[in-house]
């Protein structure tokens, strides 16, 4: 028996499952991020942001396993997203306004067309696939309803268009079979229409939501068309920010994020990440120029948690409860059997 070991694990899991949202350390910035490069979410955490997680994986899983199944890469397991039309469709689905689309695979399984790269395999039948998607959307809707600031990293991902419905879908990774649909166009009109649907959907879900758009830089070596798409997107985002309440888009923030995510890394990544977090959280650039970026809040959080009287009381109660349970007499069992 390994009661000591298992009890410890149980406690940790129970804490993770039942604990309410942690009190935010003073100065901490609470953010939710949908899609984007996982490195951005990592950087935001490193910069002291408290990043919401609508679909947390088990804490005991290895980082590699969690990443393989897209746990913790952003605030929801929705894939890289990055396009306002995709985001608008996702928000509509979270509001129950869109039917799911699944792509049948040669092995008979079904893959969620809205996030084909999130799980490495499909599900065996429509009921399972629908239940799984619905659980994702429910978690997402809850996240958005509770979010104060939503960060949306945008780029120019390759999308497929369903000619029948006009819906767009991410291009699936290698190994996933998708219908032979054409690639989606990216015009100012398409983007504006997509953004209008997105803003409307978010407004309906959470009227107080603050939006922060980040236009990611085109990947190094990108084709001229891709670079042009990024430039178009940046221009549209600036326009949207001018005409929409509670929406921010700052080219300086775009540039700082680009520097943070640049290949080869950033020499002073922690300070830069802290700066990015403050800007995402709504700080004014001029204030940061004089005050400098705040130190990461995460560093001080552990100490505060250790001192938290509620946590202390819970630990004490668990220790007492453990004392009341009967001990499994492993040693007695063993010696008894071998005394005959």
């Amino acid at each position, binding site marked *: 028996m390994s*009661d000591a*070991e298992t009890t410890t694990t149980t406690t940790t899991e129970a804490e993770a499952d039942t604990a309410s949202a942690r009190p935010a350390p003073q100065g901490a910035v609470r953010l939710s991020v949908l899609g984007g490069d996982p490195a951005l979410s990592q950087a935001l955490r490193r910069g002291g942001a408290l990043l919401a997680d609508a679909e947390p*994986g*088990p804490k005991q899983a290895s980082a590699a396993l969690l990443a393989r199944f897209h746990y913790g890469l952003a605030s929801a397991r929705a894939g890289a997203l990055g396009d306002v039309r995709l985001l608008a469709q996702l928000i509509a689905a979270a509001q129950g306004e869109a039917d799911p689309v699944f792509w049948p695979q040669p092995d008979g399984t079904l893959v969620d067309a809205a996030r084909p790269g999130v799980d490495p395999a499909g599900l065996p039948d429509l009921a399972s696939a629908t239940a799984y998607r619905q659980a994702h959307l429910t978690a997402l809707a809850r996240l958005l309803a509770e979010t104060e600031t939503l960060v949306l990293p945008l780029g120019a991902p390759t999308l497929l268009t369903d000619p029948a419905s006009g819906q767009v879908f991410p291009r699936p990774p290698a190994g996933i079979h998708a219908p032979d649909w054409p690639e989606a166009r990216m015009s100012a009109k398409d983007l504006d229409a997509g953004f209008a649907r997105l803003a409307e959907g978010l407004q309906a879900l959470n009227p107080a939501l603050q939006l922060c758009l980040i236009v990611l830089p085109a990947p190094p070596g990108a084709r001229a068309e891709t670079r042009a798409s990024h430039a178009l997107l940046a221009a549209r985002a600036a326009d949207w920010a001018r005409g929409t309440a509670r929406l921010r888009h700052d080219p300086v923030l775009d540039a700082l994020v680009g520097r943070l995510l640049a290949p080869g890394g950033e020499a002073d990544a922690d300070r830069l990440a802290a700066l990015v977090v403050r800007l995402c959280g709504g700080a004014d650039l001029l204030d940061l120029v004089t005050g400098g970026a705040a130190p990461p809040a995460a560093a001080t959080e552990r100490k505060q948690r250790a001192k938290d009287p509620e946590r202390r009381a819970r630990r004490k109660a668990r220790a007492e409860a453990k004392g009341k349970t*009967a001990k499994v007499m492993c040693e007695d*069992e063993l*010696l008894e059997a071998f005394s005959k």
Partner: protein
Amino acid sequence: MTLRLCVIGNSHIAALKLGWDRLIAEAVPGWDTVEPVFFGAPSDGMRHVGLQGTALVPTRPKIAGHFRALSGGYDRIELSRFDAFLLVGLNVSSKRILRFYKSHAWVGLCGTAGKTLVHPAFATAFLTERYGATQLVEHARTIAQATGKPVLALAEPHWADWARQAPEGTSDYGWDAAIRAGDGPALGQMFETAVAAALAPHARFIAQPAATVADGITTRGTYNKEASRLISGEGGGTDASHMNAEFGQALWAALRPALTEICPLEGVSA
């Protein structure tokens, strides 16, 4: 031909020993060609045992004392003395999967309300990873790599079915909730799949005999009865985790085909 079998485990080897005593007392045909030697330590004591040269050696005197008491005088396991190895328990139990089930469920299960729903492939991979970090798998790896000889492995038995009712003083890992949701068999199947996968490169997993299992994740009470009675005084009658001689006998029967593949047992059909 004699099969020199090294049995290594924690307290759960007690049932195997009691079952073995019965097989010998009843002179069950074929088993006299098997020569088991038991080594072990209660709880997670086997973590204080490591490979030194060609032997598994306890690093603590107390564990060495247990080895001597159980094996008839040996305070280390000289690996070359044995033809095959049987690892027992060593922290691999279905409790781990039940803990996961309290907060997560995979698509296809019934008891999903209020839980994070995960892909079945993630559940399998996660549980395989978790079981892969247990002493059972670590010792299997060590022995297989050091000897190249066959290694068999048994998990700790599911707790006795009466634990479902969680009487005062008994830990509740959620058996009743899982069974009432109709998920017992699926959880039991996932347990076997994940443990077998975690052991696969190093050892062959022998699942708990189906006849001893109730509702997929508990052990029929009859296999716990005597074990519970053996423990007197404080804690008496509250031990749902250890099993009796009958259970041990059922385990030997389940092991028989694998043992016969390693070394034909006279008079015993696989």
